[in-house]
């Protein structure tokens, strides 16, 4: 059981590393997806191993997946829009909201 969680932690922190270092907005989005999946694994594993009877973990993951889908759709729409305005999606140029 522990191995599942170890793997998901590694996966999560890979996502964090990716989120922090990549320049490309989409890459950030990818790492974000990684993190989300890691969390889903955790939910499923805990539900399966620690609370076999209930369904919270299961449904939680189900809804998490749905919301992740919606969230990514919106993110990509925004990214495309940013691309349309400033012709590149490098994260350092997106600092209009600086001060």
């Amino acid at each position: 059981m522990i191995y599942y969680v170890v793997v998901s932690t590694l996966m999560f922190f890979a996502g964090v590393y990716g989120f922090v270092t990549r320049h490309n907005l989409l890459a950030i989005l990818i790492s974000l997806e990684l993190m989300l999946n890691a969390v889903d694994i955790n939910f499923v594993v805990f539900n399966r191993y620690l609370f076999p009877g209930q369904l919270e973990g299961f449904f939680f993951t189900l809804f998490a997946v749905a919301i992740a889908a919606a969230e990514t759709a919106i993110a990509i729409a925004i990214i495309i829009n940013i691309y349309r305005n400033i012709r590149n999606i490098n994260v350092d140029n997106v600092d209009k909201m600086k001060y």
Partner: protein
Amino acid sequence: MEQVANQVIFFLLSAIIVVCSIMAVTSRRILRAATYLLFVLFATAGYYFQLDYHFLGAVQVTIYAGGILVLFVFAILLTSKLGEKSDRISSRKRAWGLLAAVLGAAICGYTLLTHDFFPSQFAQGGELDMKTVGHALMGMDKYQYLLPFEAISVLLLACIIGGIMIARKR
């Protein structure tokens, strides 16, 4: 025999997840990163199947691998020319990122390993039939999820409208 096969599959899937996620995060070509993400998603779906959550695995495969990844590919193709190599990451930023990730992993790992979870009763074959899932989804009483379900539907609707609004040609 059964046990060993499971172990092997598990190790295989975890290897895929770990390697592909690292590769997805460090590869310089964006499209390649997307494909690595695909493998990771499939591996997670594999996990779900291994834990007997077939419905969840199916949902994972269809929505994530099918839907979201396709979106990703579209976005990648729209925003960056094919094969274009993204520039080197400045060492300082990378160092910060690495430090944060490693530190986080260390803390989580340490807590996980030292924390003694109460005994896990892995009920083999606790297959979840769809009927119970359906009832729980639609039920009104305590542990049932009608309200979140409706909320999610409203959220999705909002996302759709939002997406259209943003992408509208000004």
